């Protein structure tokens, strides 16, 4: 199974009495984009820091690019790239100075350094800003600089911690285009996110909640697996309907989206639509209809079903 680039077995990390990552198993295959989906504080960053050797696991272990962790992570650092959540390059250095610094630290030869920086300035559209201080650039430009600096040493495995949280939607789109170009070149990526549309772009995702892995798989399959359990309710006066449904048995969540209610029914319910129908029977002009689940539904179901 040389296809597996990173694997964790029972990976656990505690901070005092708080368990940030709790017994998580992951398998990440080569050339894929693997998403860690979860709200803030779900353990995504902690998991990533353990996989990059920055944090020592309290329990379990990981094997990243054949290196067993906990263990000597130093040689691994030449083969992985880690783009942190905030901008952690130097704001008081220019784009070029930042890239040169990273190239020196990663021991690129003088010739390679020159060529590689030139190539990255072109790819990430930074040539015009080459002499601009990083602190004076826009969020999107800074993000491209961070990505360029992270992949400068051509890592085989790339860790991206909430890469687009500080970036506008337009920049986010082009940023993901650039990520897929890297995947095409053979790079494997582990991306953490709390954004559903971003998670949907991943080849595989793991849903994390309060340190635990609640579900994992291909986003499309995860959505198909819960088909029929998402019921859309429409009617003239939805607020009382919503209140009644929320209190109903087997109902995991009710969310109003415009003029509709999106109702998620728990796993144990045999006839989800029937259950919802029974609850809304008293309200006039109120209709129900099964609808296509999205990733948010998957997320809510995964975290509510087992969390309760």
């Amino acid at each position, binding site marked *: 199974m040389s296809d597996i680039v990173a694997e964790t077995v029972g990976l656990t990390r505690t901070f005092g009495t708080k368990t940030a990552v709790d017994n998580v198993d992951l398998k990440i295959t080569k050339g894929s984009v693997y998403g860690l989906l979860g709200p803030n504080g779900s353990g995504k960053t902690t998991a990533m820091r353990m996989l990059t050797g*920055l944090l020592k696991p309290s329990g379990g272990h990981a094997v990243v690019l054949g290196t067993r962790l906990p263990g000597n992570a*130093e040689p691994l650092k030449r083969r992985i790239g880690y783009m942190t959540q905030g901008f952690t390059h130097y704001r008081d250095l220019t784009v070029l100075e930042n890239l040169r*610094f990273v190239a020196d*630290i*990663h021991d690129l030869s003088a010739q390679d350094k020159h060529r590689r920086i030139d190539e990255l300035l072109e790819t990430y559209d930074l040539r015009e800003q080459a002499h601009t201080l990083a602190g004076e650039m826009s969020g999107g430009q800074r993000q491209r600089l961070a990505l360029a600096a992270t992949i400068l040493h051509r890592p085989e495995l790339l860790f991206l911690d909430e890469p687009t949280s500080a970036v506008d939607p337009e920049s986010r789109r082009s940023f993901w285009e650039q990520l897929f170009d890297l995947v095409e070149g053979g790079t494997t990526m582990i991306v953490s996110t709390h954004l559903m549309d971003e998670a949907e772009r991943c080849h595989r995702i793991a849903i994390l909640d309060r340190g635990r892995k609640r579900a994992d798989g291909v986003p499309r399959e995860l959505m198909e697996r819960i088909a029929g359990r998402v019921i859309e309710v429409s009617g003239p006066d939805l607020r009382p309907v919503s209140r009644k449904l929320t209190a109903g048995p087997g109902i995991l969540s009710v969310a109003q989206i415009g003029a509709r209610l999106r109702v998620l029914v728990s796993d144990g319910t045999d006839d989800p639509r029937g259950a919802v129908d029974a609850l809304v029977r008293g309200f006039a002009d109120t209709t129900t209809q099964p609808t296509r689940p999205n990733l948010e539904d998957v997320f809510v179901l995964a975290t509510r079903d087992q969390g309760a």
Partner: protein
Amino acid sequence: MISYRHILAIVRKELLQLRRDRLTFGMIVMIPLIQLVLFGYAINTEVRHIPAAVVDQSDTGLSRALIQMVEATQVVRFEHHFATIEEAERAIVRAEVRAALIIPRDVAQRLVRNPAVTGRFPQGAQDTTSRPVAQWIADGSDTLVAAAIRALRRMPLGELFREATNTPTPTFEVTLFYNPEQRTVVNIVPGLVGIILTMTMIMFTAAAIVREHERGNIEMLITTPIRPLELMIGKIIPFVGIGLIQVAIILGLGWAVFSVTIAGSLWTLLVVTLLFILASLSLGLVISTFARNQLQAMQMTVFVLLPSILLSGFMFPYEGMPEGAQILANTLPATHFMQIIRGVVLRDADLADIAPDAIWLLGFSILGLAVASLRFRKKLD
């Protein structure tokens, strides 16, 4: 093991950042410049012109002549005349004056019997027949002021009667080496090198590493193949250069403005200064591994700086301190450097003369660098 390229990359980065940090850049030059001029002119342990009052109960030509003679010593300056002792005491409380001279009604009789005037003890002189001419009351809380007033106790008064003052033959003859004119600034200038280096070197290095933590850069650095020792060395090299610039400013200005010449060899000076800079920098690095933010780093710097000023021998002679304080002072690099720099600059001491202190500084530097590198782990927990 250690990559020179990594170190060079850090050095280059530090210099670029320093160039853009105008305030810090300015401080590097302005701190030694301003402080030298300030301390060089201001610090004077020879007390003159102490504001004083006089209570002249006799109010005769003789007493007025006495007052003029006392003022002529320049130790005190009479600013107030009071009728009663109580008034003079209140003036001392209000700190209007630091001392008061009380001339009694019978000053004339006292004067004729006083050996300070006659130059010899009168026949059968006893306490009852020979009494002090007048009395000083002084604010004794400042020992320097008190000592200056006390020195007036034995002032000769022969001039009062136009008699030639008979200078008594001294018990000892004293020859003062290195600073025969007794100028305070001669001792201050080399000492200031130690104080300013302690301050800037420790503060700059401590802040330089802590800043990487505060801005999150460390998170990026530890995911790269850089080694802690490379980072530490790369961080301190620019400051070694800065330290040398500061030393050049202080000693150059000390020579140009205060005529403090460097007696020893410049090479010896360079070696010992480098040793002290290294020791201070490694201490700064150790601090940086404890401090979580720049404010904490600053506080710890002050914690080291204050005893370095007060206990190192910069302000007060090391020999005058009790043994416990001397032991404490000996743990400070500034104490050792104070001995060395004054030796080299003032007494032309060579490396052999100052070897013990120099070796101590070297040991301190190596220990500090080792501790800092060990404590700086490439981990986030």
